[in-house]
Each structure stands twice: as C-alpha cells, then as structure tokens.
C-alpha cells in the first residue's frame, strides 16, 4: 500500500485553475463566446497535457509516471462518459449539439480528475468510496479534494440557470455558461484549498489522527 499524504497541497489546484482559464481564454474572451465548440476542442489537449505535467511534478505518493498518466487519462475518459450521461439527464439535448456537450463533459471530467489526483494521488478504491460516496472526508487532503470536486460540479450545474433567460447574450448559449460555471467553481475550490492549507490543524483533528 502506498503511503498516504494527509496534508493538502495548495499550488496544483491554483496552477490547474489558472491553466484552465488560460487555455480557454488564450486569445481573447470573445472566442469562447463566438465558437464555443472549437474553443473547447482546442483548449482540451492543452488542459490535459498541462495538468499531466502538474500532476507528474506533484506526484504525491511516488506512483510510477506511466501508470499515473494512463490512470489519469482512463479515469478522465470514464468520468467524461458519466458526466455526459448526467448532463443529458439534466436536460441537455441528446442529438443536437452533441459535440458541444461531449467537449463540455470532457472538460469538467478532466479538471475534476486532476484536482482529485493532485490531492489524493492514486490510492485504493475504499478511500474514494469513503470520500466521494459516503461523503466522509477526514484528512485535509481529502477535504480539499472533496471540496474541489463539489465546487466544480456545482459551478457547472449552476451555469445552466441563465440559459432560458431572454437576454440574448453570447455567454448564455449552451455550453458556454456551464463551462464558465465550472471554471469559477474550480477557482473557488482552489481558493478554498489555499485557505485550508493556511488554517492550522486543530487539536481535535490531531488527536483523531493519532
């Protein structure tokens, strides 16, 4: 069993968040509004490669590089499919704008996967089950991972609220508002992680750890 690092790290979250923003707005903010699909497809490789670099550099529990990359990509793929499914179930069209939905799901899935891997590394499934299925994160690193995931997903979810309004703004079109929501969510998660990092561990927590 690989050693578990209980402390959260702050910089990968921040770096990843900046990276997402940079890849989406690399030229100007207009591009995302004008051609959301093309912009997303162009940004995705950048985000994946950049995040992989961050993850490799951050490699928390000394996992082998190649398996780490493969695992990240594989879980990104699986999560993409799951998120795509739920997006459709939440009301996105199945046929119309299929590729937009898919690229949006890929974006959300990948930033989620990397923020989790950056905090928890690759460990046994029980830990993931405990943190994400039973909602019982205990250590700071787990709380950070949980917080980031939740804020990305909720951000993307909240982004849908503006779609029906008749303001006729470019950012109301699917999936721009949701991408922006996910982006904001990631930023919020990163800030939360920094706060968590700076907060001193309470006596109670220490006792629990022992």
């Amino acid at each position: 069993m690989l050693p578990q690092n209980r402390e959260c790290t702050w910089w990968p979250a921040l770096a990843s968040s900046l990276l997402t923003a940079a890849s989406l707005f690399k030229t100007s903010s207009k591009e995302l509004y004008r051609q959301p699909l093309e912009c997303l497809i162009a940004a995705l490789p950048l985000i994946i490669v950049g995040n992989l670099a961050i993850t490799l550099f951050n490699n928390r529990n000394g996992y082998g590089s190649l398996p780490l990359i493969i695992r990240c990509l594989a879980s990104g793929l699986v999560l993409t499919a799951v998120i795509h499914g739920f997006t459709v179930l939440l009301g996105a069209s199945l046929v119309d704008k299929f590729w937009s939905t898919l690229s949006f799901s890929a974006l959300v899935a990948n930033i989620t996967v990397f923020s989790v891997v950056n905090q928890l590394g690759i460990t046994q499934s029980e830990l993931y089950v405990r943190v994400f299925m039973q909602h019982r994160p205990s250590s700071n690193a787990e709380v950070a991972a949980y917080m980031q995931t939740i804020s990305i997903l909720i951000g993307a979810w909240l982004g849908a609220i503006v779609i029906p309004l008749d303001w006729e703004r470019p950012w109301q079109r699917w999936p721009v508002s949701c991408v922006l929501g996910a982006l904001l969510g990631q930023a919020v998660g990163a800030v939360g992680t920094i706060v968590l990092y700076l907060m001193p561990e309470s006596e109670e927590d220490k006792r629990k750890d022992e």
Partner: protein
Amino acid sequence: MNASYRRPFAIFLVWVSLAYTLGIYLFLNGFLLTRQTLHVESTHLSSPWNQFPLASGHDHVEKSIDMESIAQSKGISDIYEPPFQRAIIVLIDALRFDFLPKLGERPSDQFYTNRLPIVQDLLDQSPESTVLFQFRADPPTTTMQRLKALMTGSLPTFIDAGSNFASSDISEDHLLRHLTRRFKSTYFMGDDTWINLFSDVLNDNSRTFPFDSFKVFDLDTVDHGILGKLWPLLDGHLPQDQTRSSLTDTGSNSSQWDCIITHFLGVDHCGHTYGPSHPSMAAKLDEMNTMLQQLVQYVDEDTLLILFGDHGMSVAGDHGGESEEEVMSGLLLHSKRPLTLSRSKHTKGDLNQNYFQHLFSKIHRNRDKTLSYDHDAITTRLGYDATAYPIVSQIHLVPTLSYLFGTPIPFGNLGALIPDLLYPKQQVDDPASLLYFIQQFRINALQVYNYLTMYSSSGKHKGFSISALDPLFQILYAADRRLDDLSSQTTFKNWIGASLLSEKERNTLVEQLEDILMTYDEFLIATLKYCMAIWAQFDVGCMVAGSVILFAALLTIVGVFIKPSWIYTLHRAFNHTIVRLLTILGAAIGLIFGFVVAHLSTQESGLWYLYVARHGIFDKMSIFGWTATLAFMGNIAGLAIAVAVQSKLTLSAIQKCIQWISHNPDVNLVLITGLAHALTLGSNSFIVYEDSVVRFILASWSIYWLIRGVATSSHTLRSLKSSSDLWAPIITLLFIQVTATTGLCREEQQPQCAYIHSGSLSLMPFREADSSTNENAFVDKWLTVIATTAFLIVSIFLCTFLPEVLQQAWFPSSKPNRTSSTSYIWCKILYGLSIGLIMLRYIYLILENTSSTQYIVVSILQSSIYQNLSSVVIHLNGLTATQWLRMTTRLFQIYIPRLNYAIGGLFLSFALRKAWRPVDLKELEESAWIAHIGGTIILATIQRPIGGVIILCWPLMLQNLTRMSDKSSISKTLTARLVILHYLGEHLFFVTGHQAILTAIHWETAFIGFDEMYMIPNAILVSLATLAGFIVSWSSSFVVVSQALGDNQDPTLRQTIYQASVLLMSLFNFIPTTLSSIFIIVLRRHLMTWKIFAPRFLLQCILFFGSCLYLIAMEGIIGGNLSDVPLRQPKRTRQA
C-alpha cells in the same frame, strides 16, 4: 392524550388555509379587472353638429357659423343614404384571416388556405362593392367576450373571460338592440351564446334557432342546422310556428326577413378537435364556401352581407390568448351597390379613387401606429402580406354598422368608423366628401365623448375623472376649433358660396379638411388606447393587503416546517386570551373602518382622498374585506405576542434554531428549492420555459436522491451495482427525459420547441407527402406512422406490466397466500379490462386524427367479410357508413369512458372502505395504492393519447419511487422522494400537453363520457384533466408517506414524519403562491402581465385550492388514523 396529540396540527392547517384563502381573495379582488356597465341607451343625435364647437369649461363659444346649414347647402346628408334595408350577418367562428384571401400555393397548409375562393371572386368581380379587412380581436379571444365586444363596441375585461361557461345577459346598450328595433323581423341561428347574451332581443322562439356550442367533437350539427333553417327562410317558405297568433302575422308574407344572423361553429370545432391542418378543416371550409356562394345570390342593392370571424385560431387550433394567430380574423362586406370610394369606378367630383385610397391608408397607418399593430409579426406568423389589407379593430365594426344601417351608435361604443365604408350619397366634390367624412366622424366622436362624460360622472374611478380625461377631450376641442377657424376663412366661404376655386386653393382646403378629419380620428383612437390601459388598472391597496396576509401565513408555515415542535407553542398561543381579544378587536375596528372609508371615498376632499383614494388604492376593498383583514392582523399580532410571552424568545433560542437548521441539510435544500422555483415565477423567460425549469429541478433532486441513497446505506462498489439505491434514481431520471419529448409548445417557445404531441400521431400517411418530390418522400410519409406504431407497441408492452402493480397494492408486506383471494382476482380482471379499453380508445383517437376512420369503416363495409357477416347478423345489414361511424364515435366517446369511470370509481370506493377503519398502517398503504390505481384509470381516460399512456403507466413509476433496498433508506431519502414527487406532478402537467395559458386548456375533455352539456360534471372533467399531473403526485404522496410511516413504530417520530411530509408537499404550492402574488404587484405594468404572469398566477391559485383539498384528505385519512393507530399499536410491538 391522542386527541390533543393530533388536534394542534389540524387546527394549524385550518388556520393556514383560511389565511391563504383570505389573502388570495383580497389579492384577486384587486387584481382582476372590472368595468362598470352603464344602462343607458343611445338615441339619434338631433344634429351631427350638436354643441359645435365643443370647448372645455362649458363656456359656450359664440357660434360663428352654422355648420348644419353649410352641410345641407352642399348636399351632404348627415346619414348614410339610403341605409341598407336588409342585413345578412354571417359569423364563422374562428375564421382566421389567412383562410380568406387568395394566397400562394403552400403544401404545408393546403387544408385551410385558398379554400374560400368565393371571397377572391367577389373581390375580382365587384371591387367597389366588396371590401375585405383584417379583423383584429382584442384579447381574451373567447367567443363570449368577442360577441360582447362586437355588439357593444366596448372592451370586455379579463374577469369576463372566466365566465365563458356561464355567459350572462348584457346590460349595456348594444347594436343588436338597435338593429332589432329597425328591422322588424330579425332571425338568428347558431351558437346559443347569443341567446344568453342578448336575451332581451332574441326572445322570439319562432325566429331564433340556437344550437349547443360546447360539443366540440361535433363538427356538423350546428352548421347543418343553420343551413336547414337558412335556405327555406331566404327562399320564403320557412314554416311558421303554429303557436304564434295570427294577429301578429296579419296575413302578410310571414317569411319576410330583414336581418339574418348566423353563427357557424364548425370551423372552430374542427380547429379544437383536429387543428387547422387537417382534412376535416378542408371539408369544413369547402362547405362554408358553397354556403357563401349560394348566399351571395340573395344579396341585392339593399342587402348588406357581412362575413366575419370572431377570432382566429392558434397553430394547434385553439384560441383564448393573444398571439397573432388568435387575434387576426377577417371581415368581408359585400353588397350590390358600391360600398367604398377607394375603388369606385365612377370618379366623383374631381378627386379620383387614388386620392381616397391614399387617405384611407393614411388613416389606417395612423391607427396602426397608435394601437401598435405589428405588420411584420403578422406576416411572419401567418404567412401572408399583412400590409395588403387594412387592419381594423373588431369594435370598429359597431359604429360602422350603425352608420350603414342608420341606427344610433350604441351608447358604450369605443370603436371608430372604418373610413373606407363612408360613402356620400350624392355626387359631391372632394371637399364636400371630406366634410361628409368629418361629419360622420364627429357623430362618432360625440357619442364617445358623451359616454366618457357619463362614465366619469357615474363612477368613482379616478382614471375617469374629468381632469384625467381632459387631455383626450382637448384633442376633440382642438378638432372642433380648427373646423370653426377654417369655416371663417375666405377660401372656405368662397367654396360655400360656390365660387370657383383655383387648383391651389382647393388643394389647401382639402389638406386642411383632411387634417381636421385626422384630429377627430386621433381623438377616437387615443380614447380607445386610453381605455384599454385604464381598464387594466389594478387596485394596488387590495393586492398589497392580500400579499401581506399570504406572506404572514407563509412565514408561520415555514417556521413550523423548520421546527416541528413549534406547533405546540402555536397551539398554546391559539388558546391564549390575547389572541381572541385582539382578533375580535381587529374585526370591530375593521368594521368601523370599512364604514368610515366607504363614507370618505364618496367625497372628493380630505386626507383620505388626497393620499389614498385618488390613486385608486383600496377602491375595491369591501367592508367585509376590511373586517377580515384587520381581524387577521389582530390575530397574527396576538399570536406573535402570545408566542413571545410563552417561549421566552431569547437570543440563545434563535441561535439554537439556526444551529438546528444548519444540521438539517434536507430542510435547507427543500426551502431553497421552493424559493428558487418561486423566484423563477418573477421572470417571463423562466415562466415560458417552466417545463425545462421543472425538469432541471427534478433531475437535480433525483441526483441528490441518488447521492443520499448511496451515501446512507453502507454500500461497497460491488453491492451498489444491484442496489435500488442506484437504479431507482436513474430510472426516474430516464423517465423524466423520455417523457420530456412530449408536451405542448407555448407560442413564445417557438421555433425552438419540438415536442411530440398527441395531435401529431397518425396511423395514416399524410396526404401532403405525396406531392413532395424528394427522395425521402417514402420515409417522410411513413415516419409518423412508424413512430405512432412504435409508440402504441411500447405503451401496450408497458401496460402488460401494470396488473402486476396490484400485487404491491395488495400486500406490500408480501403475504403470497392472499394472491388467490377472489377480490384480488376480480380487481386484476377489472384493471386489465380498463387498461385494454383505454388503449383501444387511444387507438381510436389516433385513427380519428387523420380522419382515416371514415376510410377504414368504408373499406370494412365493402369487404367481403362484412358482407358475409351482415348476412348472418340480420340487423347489422343495411347500416350505412355514417351510421357505423356514429356508432363507433358514441362507443369510444361515451360508453367506454363511462365504463372506465365506473371501474375507477369502484377502485376508489374500495380503497376508501379499506381506509375507513384500517387495522394498521400497512393497510393504509394498501388502500392508498388501490385508490391510486383507480385514480390513474379515470385520469388516463380523459387525457389525450400520449399523456394518457404516461398517466396510465404512472403506477410503475410510483413502484420505482417506493422500492427501497433497506428500511434505513426509506426515511433517509423520504424528503428527496417527496420533493421529486411534487415536481414530477408539475412535470406531468406539462407532459400531458398542458401549459399555464388559457389556450392550452383541453376543452374537449368536457364531453368525454357525456353527450349532453352538464355544467358541473363538465367543469370537473376539465379541471381533472388539467390538474391530472398534480392529482397523481398528491395521491402518490399518500403511498410514499404511509410507507414511511409504516416503517416507524415510534409514535412521536411518526407524527414528526407525517407533519413534515404534509408541510413539505403544501409548501411547494404555498411558497410560489405568495411570491408570485408579490411579483404580480411589482410587474403589473409589464408587457407580458396578461399573457404570461396572470395565467400562471391563476394556475397557482387553483393549485392552492387543490392542495387545500389534499391537506384535508391527508389529515382526514392518515392524520386521523395516526392518532388512532397507536392505541392498538403498542400491543403489536410488544408481541413482536
């Protein structure tokens, strides 16, 4: 102990319901508009130049010139000469404008365009004696309101729209009264709404032939009935009623007619039943065309034929709203004499027809601008060039007909003359024609002026005070003054003096006269616009009072919902003396205040008038309103004091409460969801897309349910795969998305909206596909058929699972030995039978959709099998296709639904008997299931096919919602499931083809199972069909709640669960009701108030009353038993 245990909650529910009812009553009192009707009859003016020139302040300006003599000297008569001697009024209900003119060939709407070629023929053959207008109705576009407007020339307000079922007598002055006075023998045939509205004049049974207007399935009875009376009458041999005394007939030709009014309903019924794009519509319009062709032959020089529709129809064939499709109808006038100057062949004077054409279009342009008619929107929506024909408002017909028939204009008319139809008798020159026009417009203006003065003096409405109307009157004064000024000019005098004018002088004179004419018209149209706005004036005082009460009641419920133990605090407070004291005091003060205010608002001075009454605030508050409001205020103040005294409300108590809330994520989420959904009612886009909003909330909560379910039961990844904790939410999500493909599109959702609706199902390829030349024609042609067949197969397949649901209903606790009980087997048979019947009915409905039924029946009749059969069964022989058709229609529309009502009723009564004295909560759950099944049978019977199948299959969904992997998740996920249930109800509302608009009401439901009109059952059926989704959701909550209760033995916990569930279900209706009322106050001047916000609020009010019924049922059945059951329960637990 038990009685006191239960009573607090029941009392609380009663209190809340009463408070809400009072709040809604006050609010609607201020919100729904009412208009005063004046019982004054108009008479002929002694002269068109009465009181000339009008001026403000009654200081009579010295009459500089006698206009009357001028007019006479120029040979201008003050009336239309000679007035028509006979009138044929043909009203074709729902005659949309694009049915009338010749339009380019478009295959998509071949069923209704170019079906009335007679119109174009008349326009071509006799252009000067035929005029066609676009006839614009004011919303609401319901027949009764339109008839009122068409005859009185006034603007019926929204409140009248609700009384379409019980249309009552018109008390205002109306055109028909004047017409019947002028025409001795007026005949009426058609829609019986006329008889109800104009019973004062249409009371001669031998001359009126009313027909029932509500049988929308019946396309022909009314029309054929009319034709059966019309032709004999026109040909002069209508059999006279023998009972009439011979004295009145005096031996003369008794079938002489002066005025015939016909109201055809077939087109409207066809629209309601099949929509405009349907072969039946083509047949109906062809029939109308033949009728018109024949009718035109009876039109001579002295007869005026008036053909018009009272409103249009939407794309789906319904009406009631204010979309362009619904308001645009057509008006055609035809006679053998020339009717209009603008196409006159004989040039009159020296102005040619071009001049008049130009003048009329200028007047129409001005009117369109003032009343903001959007030509472009009409052109895009209806597909014809809207600029090609002038648009006239429906009420303009009233003064125009008065003019043409030489009757006084009805007293309350607000319409303006249609300039195109003004026609001076003699050959006069152009200034004289213009003066004639001015004269007619002044008669019209004077009538409107008199009406306004009378209205302002008789009512206390502040918008009609003389000072408020003054800006309008100034326009009229200006017009009179300018005419007066002009008459003293030399050019004018020269013209009067019949001296020759130079070209330039003449042109200036014409220009000046034209200007004056436009000013009169401006007065008329500005008045119309002003009145439209003023009758949309609300009583803000009443609305605010209502909202405050709603808000106070809501706060109390939310308090009890957050902290269930407050119910006891409240209960103790109710018994406190101070509450009673303050309530009585409040009522007394309110009573006195009411009388004082009633007295104060009669005077036009004082502080009350200055600050309150002048702005129309508390205008509509009655003495009862004041008493009830202040009593409620006293009551709530007393409660607040009593609660504060008792519970020693301190800061730490509040802190504790906040802490408690933060530890209950479910409570928070419920409140946030309710609030968020209610907040969306403040935005028109969210209301328009509410179906998607509801779906989003629903899917989000299903995901929350999934997360909760997975988190609470200690699952591993492996055990999860087969757990219903994972699959039940996912099935729910799939159900939502699959059903989301059907529904009804609001017109605001166009063109993005692509719902499959029941009307698009068909088992016969559409005819229009034949003409299309593309390669996929075959696929296109058969696509709907394939889709429909697939739909039917899937639904029949689903239905085969349904009887299994009964097993769950019978023994949730799975005691298989009861499977063989006879009652179970009987119920299963009955259930299966009614499912089969419902499916058969749907197949029939789909067949009828394409009118292929006729085809099938005929082909069966021709087939050899039938020939053989009929020879065996003797009495079947000799039946014609029509008879067969009528028999099948009766079978599916009347007998099968009746049978299903009976089966559903049987289930319901069985359930009720079981619930009466339940042994334990398990039995209660069983009876809830049985009642639910009975309910779905009845509700599915009255739905359209797609919605009906969804309702019918709902028990499967409910099974999914109540199937839990272990007991712990039953109560853990209860909140999530109840929230989902509520929103599923709303989702089902949309899925079954409803929207929060008047147009979307399924009126045809009223006659499922009934062949006659019975007011109350029909109204019940329509409301059941509309609220089917909510009813299903409410009744499902019985099942869910009783299941959750059955799994808890602790009586206190049970009470808490029960109370929380009931409050949760009602909060989701109470929060939106309160907030929506506040939004309406804020947005009352919004452009979309009547179109979007008001119908949504009315739906919310209906839902509130529905949820009150739900509360009563819940409290009566479960709440009542809850306090009884523990009496017997402890023994059982001890045994266990």
